[in-house]
């Protein structure tokens, strides 16, 4: 098996699915000739031609709207938004149209598209290039939100997303793109959407994370008897998995790089308060970024949750 980084794993998944299913069409800014600003779509235009890998004008709402129309008319578009911060100008199309088309048409039209976008902090890029506002999209009942945490699950989740009948927002943790290499099977495999994964079993505390925070959490909990849950899908949340773990450990820490208020951690902690309170020995802890816009490079380390902050939170909940 090959050792691949996440860029390679995603590229491989795209190439394999495009070879298998000619309804799959990539559309976005610089995805063709240039292979994408992170080279995730590198080589695909050469291999599949410019009709399958479309370079677009600088037009996020147009890209998203076009992808919706393509999906409704039988294709399986994969729109790329260059950075998560630029999904905002496509917000209406994704949130109010793509995510609602099946419901609006009462099932006549689905919208099987996979919106790929790099997200998250720590790459020393300008403003709006390091957003982590996944909770915005988890409020759309018709949209799945998927976040891989490594090359292996990136490939399997992407293949599953590409075969899902509903729209998927596929958030790629930019910081991890080339950071981690893993064994990635050459062949096809699916990682089921809507299922969290126990990344590390443990007995005394449950730590929930996703995307780029997973790597940090695993480092942070090395000295604890902690169960780490990698959510993988944020909408719908696999709360059965989280509740099952908390039932065992009695303690919960949630870690995300989005700002604290109204992040996805709120929904997880709220569900614990509503459905898991009898398992809890003490307060839930959220380790999150502060309630400010994502800063530039010089301040980013003070913004993103650190290993120390995660450890302190784990120690805190262990007091109960």
């Amino acid at each position, binding site marked *: 098996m090959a050792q691949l980084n996440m860029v390679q794993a995603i590229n491989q998944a795209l190439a394999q699915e495009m070879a298998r299913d000619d309804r799959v*069409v990539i559309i976005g800014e610089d995805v063709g000739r240039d292979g994408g600003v992170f080279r995730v779509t590198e080589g695909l235009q050469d291999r599949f031609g410019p009709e399958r890998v479309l370079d677009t004008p600088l037009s996020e709402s147009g890209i998203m709207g076009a992808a919706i129309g*393509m999906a409704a008319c039988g294709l399986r578009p994969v729109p790329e938004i260059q950075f998560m911060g630029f999904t905002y100008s496509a917000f209406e199309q994704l949130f*109010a149209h793509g995510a609602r088309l*099946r419901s609006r048409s009462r099932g006549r039209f689905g919208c099987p598209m996979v919106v790929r976008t790099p997200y998250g902090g720590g790459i020393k890029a300008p403003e709006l290039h390091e957003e982590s506002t996944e909770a915005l999209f988890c409020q759309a009942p018709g949209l799945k939100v998927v976040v891989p945490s490594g090359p292996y699950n990136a490939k399997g989740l992407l293949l599953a997303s590409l075969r899902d009948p509903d729209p998927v927002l596929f958030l790629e943790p930019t910081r991890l793109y080339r950071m981690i290499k893993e064994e990635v099977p050459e062949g096809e495999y699916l990682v089921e959407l809507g299922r969290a994964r126990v990344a590390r079993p443990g007995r005394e505390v449950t730590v929930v994370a996703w995307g780029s925070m997973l790597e940090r959490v695993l480092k942070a909990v090395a000295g604890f008897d902690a169960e780490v849950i990698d959510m993988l899908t944020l909408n719908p949340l696999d709360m059965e998995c989280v509740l099952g773990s908390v039932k065992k450990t009695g303690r919960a820490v949630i870690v995300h790089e989005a700002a604290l208020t109204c992040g996805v951690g709120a929904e997880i902690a709220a569900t614990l308060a509503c459905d898991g309170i009898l398992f809890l020995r003490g307060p839930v802890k959220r380790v999150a970024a502060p309630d400010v816009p994502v800063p530039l490079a010089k301040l980013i380390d003070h913004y993103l949750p650190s290993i120390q902050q995660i450890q302190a939170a784990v120690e805190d909940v262990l007091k109960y």
Partner: protein
Amino acid sequence: MPDTVIATFQVRQLTILDPSGDVDLALLPKLSDDRLWEMYRFMVLTRVFDERAVSLQREGRMGTYPPVKGQEATQVGSAFALTKEDWIFPSFREMGVHLTLGFPIPQLLQYWTGDERAQRIPEQFKIFPFCVAVGSQLPQAVGAALAVRYRREPAAVAVFFGDGATSKGDFHEAMNMAGVYRLPIVFICQNNQWAISVPVKGQTASATLAQKAVGYGFEGIQVDGNDVLAVYAAVSGALEKARRGEGPAMVECLTYRMADHTTADDAGRYRSPEEVEYWRSRDPLLRMERYLESRGRWTPEAAGEVRGWATAAIDQAVREMEEIPPPEPAELFEGALAELTPRQKRQRKER
């Protein structure tokens, strides 16, 4: 040549059937008298549908409704230019298009009773469920055109929108993409002079809406939108060109919203009786009647028959619509996802 004219553009306007019922023979599209009569019948059907919908609302038997009165020529003329293979992206005011294409009338009424099940378009129609978010259908229609082209289908896409929609970013992004990829799509703008209370002059400083196409590298043409023959000719021509792979076009149909914006609106607050009167004299039905009279088809009796047919069809549709049983609570979840989440399943059970 340091201060040079490097490009020149023209905007054309097309009228074939003028308000007095005279036609320009050189431009007259080839349509049999029976086809012309069909057009007239659907214009009347649209008018009768509209009148009934407004009174159903007044009687409390239907919710807020956006009348289409005055726009019958634009809608029926466009619909006559469409084939069964073409994709249609309507706005919320395209009842005349739906009726002409044979859309089930009870279902057309049903939406305005507050029942979203009406948005499940029957399989035989390549029509998108409209969305009230003005302009949002335009990029989606471009996507449909990409799909049509990708599969080499012998079809085009027709997308309908109003003058107000031309101010939205999505209009721009859609027009621009259609130009870049030279897609098989026709942008049909019903310039009915008003977007609720905002007149076209308040919408844009552009002298015509058709000239907006200049910025996207394809043709925009203005037609007299109360002239069903001009609309038919312009839209047919544009669709055929699109189907032949010769790229997109925009057709601006100059028409008028003769009624209020919706039954919840009072147009008297913002427009003058003189203006309304002027446009009444340009009623698209009137001029078609005059023309058909000149061809010996239209008589008061024939007109009465058409009205009778339309009224009976609408009566029947209203009855059927009112017999539709109300939705079950579980209907809320219909199509939320292909497979509901565990949480949604629990929520559905609780209702």
